[in-house]
């Protein structure tokens, strides 16, 4: 009953917000925030509960089921929190734009649909919610018109291909096992042949891989993320693509099960190592592409592809630590990527640009957003004391100890690439010299600062006390049949090496205090304006500080020839082939009735000729 109520609030609230918006925009804003916060509270209250309930009998002969367990709760709370923050962020971001009622309707609808996906207990309702999510996301991506339309089109076409694959898999499961209830498929699928399981994993893998932007299905993501409105980019990157992750978890661990999944094929040519390899490639290539971007949101979008690789690698590797690390990284990525998109959105809101070559020096103008970005990039890199470190540590550790140093190498090298692009982001936006045209920039409005602050605090909290989320994730992994890890509030203890974040925290704190003391005791420094800088006797004219443009130029020159997005070009080639084919078909289907009459007569004449000549009938 309670799960139905949750979805009724989510979907009904979305429609109600739209209707209220027609009367008063203040009431609509209040309602939208209230509903999204109510969802957070509601989901939080469901902690620890499990259960299954049928909410619709006889839909095309199926019963639609909702189901709650630790896995779906963990995803649901992430969705609710990031969704609520994005609604709050939207309040000032969207003010003064067109069709704001529609915007809020779609934002709430996407969140509701995602809640539906993670709570779905059978594949039919999963599919219904999945489609609602895909289509409302399409409408939001193309909200800004112009290039956003093309990006949305690219997204929805790939999304439809994914949905078709999902449908094929679903029908095949129904034909084989006569049920679509997830908990009923799981026990009977063990009797299936390994070829059939490989088929199921492949079709679902394509469906979820497209949503999760795993190479080679990533091409929709950079366009969609950079063109969407900033609050929705945060949702898109933070949680919407993670529905693919949820799907992978569902298929690999809940439906097929760990043993069957690891037992497919042998050595390097098993499904499991192929998926790991795909994850590793997904980490490394987009990371290098991200370094070359000059659009802040596009840079973050490529970074999302790369980080999704860590999650896939963790999930596909199939050890306890890797799975825990992968799920934890999903959670962290939702936090820090939403934070970074909010930060970039706030900058764009105030300066009307997100071009990394023309910004700079905003740290003094927007201090809160700057600190938020700093925390965000630290978590993205995985600096100790942010939550990103713990999840990456878990993944690296298991990769090394299980004897896959090359996968570990990809993951670690990806991190060093991450440093380069995330430093570029913070340097080009917040550090360096403030251009004259941005001298009057004000600090971000409160409704934009609030989500940034909340997420920054969460990242630091879960970095110093990783035990809080790890406890939930540990419960998830035990429900998949793994042994329970020894999780404490401060980290993980195990026989193969412990992680103790409190030691690190204390050490950094004491060392920093010590250095600060020395710094403070030494002779005082004078604060100088930015123009007063040393240039070896030369004069640097105002607004001539162009060294942020092409920040990594030497590297750029070296790696550019290797980084063509061949896959994207290949898709475009297919698209152009299809278009040419359709064009040539149009020469036949002219739309002129006279032509069609001629075709019919010619065809009849042909039949008569055949009959007269050979008498086959």
């Amino acid at each position: 009953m309670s799960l139905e109520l949750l979805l009724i609030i989510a979907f009904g609230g979305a429609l109600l917000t739209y209707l209220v918006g027609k009367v008063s925009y203040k009431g609509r804003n209040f309602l939208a925030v209230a509903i999204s916060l109510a969802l957070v509270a509601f989901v939080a209250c469901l902690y620890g509960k499990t259960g299954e309930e049928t909410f619709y009998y006889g839909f095309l002969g199926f019963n639609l089921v909702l189901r709650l367990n630790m896995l779906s709760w963990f995803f649901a709370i992430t969705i609710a929190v990031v969704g609520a923050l994005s609604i709050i962020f939207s309040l000032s971001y969207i003010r003064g734009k067109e069709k704001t009622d529609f915007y809020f309707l779609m934002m709430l609808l996407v969140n509701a649909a995602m809640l539906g996906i993670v709570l779905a207990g059978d594949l039919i309702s999963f599919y219904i919610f999945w489609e609602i999510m895909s289509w409302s996301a399409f409408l939001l991506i193309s909200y800004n018109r112009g290039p956003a339309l093309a990006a949305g089109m690219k997204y929805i076409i790939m999304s439809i291909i994914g949905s078709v694959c999902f449908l094929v898999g679903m029908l095949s499961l129904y034909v084989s096992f006569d049920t679509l209830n997830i908990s009923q498929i799981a026990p009977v699928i063990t009797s299936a042949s390994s070829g059939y399981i490989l088929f199921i994993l492949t079709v679902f893998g394509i469906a979820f891989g497209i949503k999760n932007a795993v190479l080679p299905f990533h091409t929709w993501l950079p366009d969609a993320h950079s063109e969407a409105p900033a609050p929705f980019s945060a949702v898109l990157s933070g949680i919407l693509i993670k529905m693919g992750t949820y799907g992978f978890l569902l298929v690999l661990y809940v439906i097929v099960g760990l043993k069957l999944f690891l037992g497919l094929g042998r050595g390097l040519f098993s499904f499991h190592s192929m998926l790991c390899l795909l994850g590793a490639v997904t980490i490394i290539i987009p990371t290098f592409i991200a370094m070359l971007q000059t659009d802040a949101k596009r840079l973050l979008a490529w970074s999302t592809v790369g980080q999704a690789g860590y999650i896939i690698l963790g999930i596909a590797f199939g050890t306890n630590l890797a799975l825990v690390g992968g799920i934890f990284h999903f959670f962290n990525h939702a936090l820090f990527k939403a934070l970074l998109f909010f930060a970039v959105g706030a900058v764009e809101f105030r300066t009307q640009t997100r071009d990394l070559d023309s910004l700079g020096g905003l740290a003094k103008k927007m201090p809160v957003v700057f600190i938020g970005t700093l925390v965000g990039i630290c978590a993205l890199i995985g600096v100790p004391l942010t939550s990103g470190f713990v999840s990456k540590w878990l993944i690296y550790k298991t990769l090394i100890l299980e004897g896959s140093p090359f996968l570990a190498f990809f993951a670690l090298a990806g991190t060093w690439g991450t440093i380069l692009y995330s430093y570029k982001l913070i340097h080009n936006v917040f550090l360096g010299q403030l251009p004259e045209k941005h001298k009057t920039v004000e600090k971000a409005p409160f409704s934009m600062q609030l989500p940034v602050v909340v997420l920054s605090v969460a990242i630091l909290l879960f970095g110093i006390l990783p035990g809080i989320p790890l406890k939930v994730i540990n419960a998830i992994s035990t429900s998949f049949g793994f042994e329970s890890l020894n999780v404490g509030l401060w980290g993980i203890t195990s026989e193969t090496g412990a992680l103790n974040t409190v030691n690190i925290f204390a050490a950094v704190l004491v060392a920093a205090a010590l250095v600060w003391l020395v710094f403070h005791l030494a002779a005082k420094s004078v604060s100088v304006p930015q123009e007063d800088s040393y240039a070896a006797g030369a004069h640097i004219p105002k607004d001539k500080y162009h060294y942020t443009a092409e920040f990594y130029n030497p590297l750029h020159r070296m790696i550019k020839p290797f980084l063509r997005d061949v896959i994207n070009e290949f898709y475009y080639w297919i698209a152009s082939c299809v278009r040419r084919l359709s064009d040539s078909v149009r020469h036949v289907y002219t739309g002129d009735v006279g032509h069609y009459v001629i075709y019919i007569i010619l065809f009849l004449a042909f039949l008569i000729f055949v009959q007269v000549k050979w008498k086959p009938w």
Partner: protein
Amino acid sequence: MVAKVIKIILSPILALIVGVFFLGLARKIMARIHWRYGPPLIQPVIDMIKLFYQKSVSHGRMFDLGIILSLAGSIVVVLFLPFGRICPLSSSGGLLVILYMMLLAPLGTALSGGQGANPNISIGISRKLILSLGYEVPLLLVLLAVMTHYKTISIMEVVSVQQSTSWSIISFPLFLSGLSYFLILPAILGIRPFDVSSAPQEVSSGIMAEYGGKYLALATIEHAFVLFISTALFVNLFLGGAANPVIFFVKMLVVFVLGLCINAVFPRFRIEQAIKYLWKWPTLLAFLGLIITLAIRS
């Protein structure tokens, strides 16, 4: 407990003394190679004391905090590194934590320098980060080979296994990795021919351009720590660590002086040349080392 606290206090101080000694020694050796007399060994200490009393300019809050963070990061890494038997925090996270804590120092410097709002600094940082990407590739392969070979991520275990068997630099697959580490050591230390990011003649000392007074002093101390950390890591991973700090120091000295003498005679690379070098021979050696290690293991 008391012993642990003493170790925690002692190890950064020892590291500082060794690092500053290396700074002075480097100048002296370079001078002798150049047929000069060179400054006295304690010249860095004199400079630092002088710098702390000098007035300096600040470009903002991040300019101050960055340099503090950077030095604090280096001090923390020292706590995780065994120095002879002195290793207060080795048990919490192992080599991976060291690897990650080594990030804090360059990140802090980069953030601090970024707020300096000087074109030379931006070029310096850009070069520094590219260079670090360059040497991290072979370095990661080397560390992974070591961790795969000893089947652990704890640096203490790597040391103790070596002490009971033989040094990894003379054991079969790992000597390739050791050689690779030695080849990239000057890049990690940021000395010639890899001093692209702080090249005085090209970019006015790069990252250091806006530093004066206490900032320069702290940056110098940070550099001293980096000298200590990268050399100590090599000694721990490949020369079997040591049973006591004195022998450990002697091993470090040998590694450092060898590295210095070989590289003092090279002119400075351009950044592309540096990357090409780093991604060619050292990476190849490290890659081979890792493959053979993996083959032997399975």
